[in-house]
């Protein structure tokens, strides 16, 4: 297992580029509509109504957001629980995505619920029968765990480099001391949080699938099945690595770094079996419940289902089986992007397309405001990611010096 030594370092690159300016404009546009939502109510910005209580924000910001942040727990399981050191270079970027991803899920919930100032209610008002309660509690705890898991990156950045403004300079020493204590404590206890993160993720990824089960016949039979929680978990597990590859390749392109092909190819080789399991359950479910009959009617549901399965699962599955794809950055990127697209579409399908309320007069399509807010959130996410990797040691670069094992394999060594 000898390979180049990798050390996470803050990347040296300028923050502003034309692309970044574009993202800022998209983000501001989203924030404007967001203000509309807070001043005039949800109805003023969205196309939601009594027939369609949930739309784009729940389907994409929350459900797809949680699924696409699955890279955090799948790589943590691989790198820390299986102790596969060769993957450590990607654990931190994946952790950062998960942390930012879940932060935005929480913000998505915050803007979607009618009484955002009561967002803390589930902490003290429990309903164990509610799948949503389970999702809410797990996401809250997991978000905290993610912040704790990320803390070492912050302490590492500042230890020995604490440099407060002049009038506070006297605190430099105590702050540094505090960081060191914190750091030591964290590295001793980190394994607890890492395992907790994986357990919490498995729980709420699947409970997210339970959410729509209660909608019963209101949901199209192509998607409505009692094994929805299992399908959600399996698809989340299989989208974890593709998402890591997807963003790693984008980041290296945008920051002019050499793509981490050896690690990414190896990661890619694990995707096919995971996708295969998911596909097997999905097809098996379809055969057992005989829902394939719905595929012959030509309508939105059948078309969306076919696209989801064909482009989101079957084609990338075939691609990941080919060694050539695994070795070629552009092909690897395409295959990963397809899986990401497939899971995104699956969540939209489950929460929006499949949902067919009994008295709707016209079907729901998100408003410009809803789309603006969602796209704006994604833009802010990318901007925050960029800021953090430029200022904190997240992305690993090849280096000659000995690895700082203390930091790269924290807590489990």
């Amino acid at each position, binding site marked *: 297992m000898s390979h180049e030594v990798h050390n996470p370092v803050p990347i040296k690159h300028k923050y502003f580029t034309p692309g970044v300016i574009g993202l800022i404009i998209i983000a501001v546009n989203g924030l404007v509509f967001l203000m509309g939502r807070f001043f005039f109510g949800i109805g003023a910005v969205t196309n939601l109504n009594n027939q369609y209580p949930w739309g784009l924000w729940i389907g994409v910001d929350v459900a797809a957001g949680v699924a696409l942040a699955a890279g955090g727990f799948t790589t943590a399981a691989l790198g820390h629980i299986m*102790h596969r050191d060769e993957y450590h270079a990607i654990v931190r970027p994946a952790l950062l995505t998960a942390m930012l991803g879940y932060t935005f899920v929480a913000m998505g919930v915050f803007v979607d619920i009618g009484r955002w100032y009561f967002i803390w209610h589930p902490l003290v008002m429990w309903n164990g029968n509610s799948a949503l309660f389970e999702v809410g509690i797990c996401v809250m705890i997991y978000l905290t765990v993610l912040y704790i898991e990320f803390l070492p990156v912050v302490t590492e950045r500042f230890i020995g480099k604490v440099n407060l403004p002049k009038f506070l300079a006297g605190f430099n020493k105590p702050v540094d001391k505090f960081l060191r204590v914190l750091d030591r404590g964290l590295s001793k206890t980190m394994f607890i949080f890492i395992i907790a993160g994986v357990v919490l993720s498995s729980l709420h990824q699947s409970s997210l699938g339970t959410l729509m089960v209660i909608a019963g016949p209101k949901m199209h039979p192509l998607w409505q099945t009692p094994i929805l929680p299992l399908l959600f978990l399996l698809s989340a597990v299989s989208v974890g690595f593709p998402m890591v590859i997807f963003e790693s390749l984008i980041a290296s392109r945008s920051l002019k770094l050499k793509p981490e092909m050896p690690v990414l190819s190896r990661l890619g080789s694990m995707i096919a079996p995971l996708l295969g399991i998911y596909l097997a359950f999905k097809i098996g479910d379809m055969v057992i419940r005989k829902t394939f009959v719905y595929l012959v009617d030509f309508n939105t549901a059948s078309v969306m289902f076919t696209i989801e399965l064909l482009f989101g699962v079957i084609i990338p599955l075939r691609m990941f089986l080919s060694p050539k794809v695994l070795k070629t950055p552009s092909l690897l990127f395409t295959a990963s992007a397809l899986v990401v697209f497939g899971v995104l579409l699956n969540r939209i399908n489950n929460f929006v397309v499949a949902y067919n309320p009994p008295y709707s007069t016209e079907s729901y399509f998100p408003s410009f405001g809803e789309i603006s807010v969602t796209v704006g959130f994604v833009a802010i996410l990318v901007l925050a990611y960029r800021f953090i990797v430029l200022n904190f040691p997240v992305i690993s670069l090849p280096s000659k010096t000995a690895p700082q094992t203390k930091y790269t394999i924290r807590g489990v060594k």
Partner: protein
Amino acid sequence: MSGKSRRDFLKSTALIGAGVTGLTTTAKAGPQNILSEDRMGVLVDTTVCVGCRNCEWACKDAHNLPAGNLEDYEDRKVLDTKRRPGTDALTVVNEYSHGKNSSLPIDVKVQCMHCDHPACVSACIVGAFTKHENGTVTWDTDMCIGCRYCMAACPFQVPAFEYDKALNPMIMKCDFCFDRTKEGKLPACVEICPVEALTYGKRSDLIKIARDRIKRNPDKYVDHILGETEVGGTSWMYLASKDFAELEFPKLGKNPAPGVSESIQHGIFAYFVPPISLYALLGGIMWITKRRKELDEEVK
């Protein structure tokens, strides 16, 4: 070694999966609400209803919603469009043509059905809904966070939400005049109905009455009491002269709406055993792989 741990990982994921599916079929949903034998209900006989919409007025009046003048409700043009209970009216009357047998229209009053196993009660993230002993399902404004999961869950698509309020939007639905029945009064709609299309009484008695009416007039009624068994039974029940699907009632099975989701929920969380086992399992794998690596390094 690397192949092994990958297999471990797959194995444990498969285990969780098997656990989830296995439990869904075995675990039983815990009873969420104790159903009183004496719970009340209303029997709506759509063959009697004349579509006067007095009940709509009385309902608004009893719930402090802008009701207007009772005389204005005589305008039957409103019945040309199908309406749903909403934030301005907790109950509405819709009119359907009778079809071949008669030129008289069929009028159907709709509102919350006050299910015996309500999906809204099961779904609400904070437990803001309560199924009371007298059958009523109510909603608590101080708890609700406005997530609208109750709306996604309700099989009759009843709860409505105040979308255009920026502060304290409410979930609105019929509350079976909980405050009135507590004082021994009739629900407002039942009280005002001029033709006794609505019968308030013990649910078990209502079923007997309904059966009796069907038996005595088999030509008039379809042999189906809507709400007797649908989604595990509802407090409000309907009689009709036409198939209920043609009166826009959703087609629902006999199983309580929250049954499957609750068994899954309780399966995943059965006394916290599955999450804790998973935690232990992962901890074990972590320890073993770490040990193995240390041994590898010693050998080197």
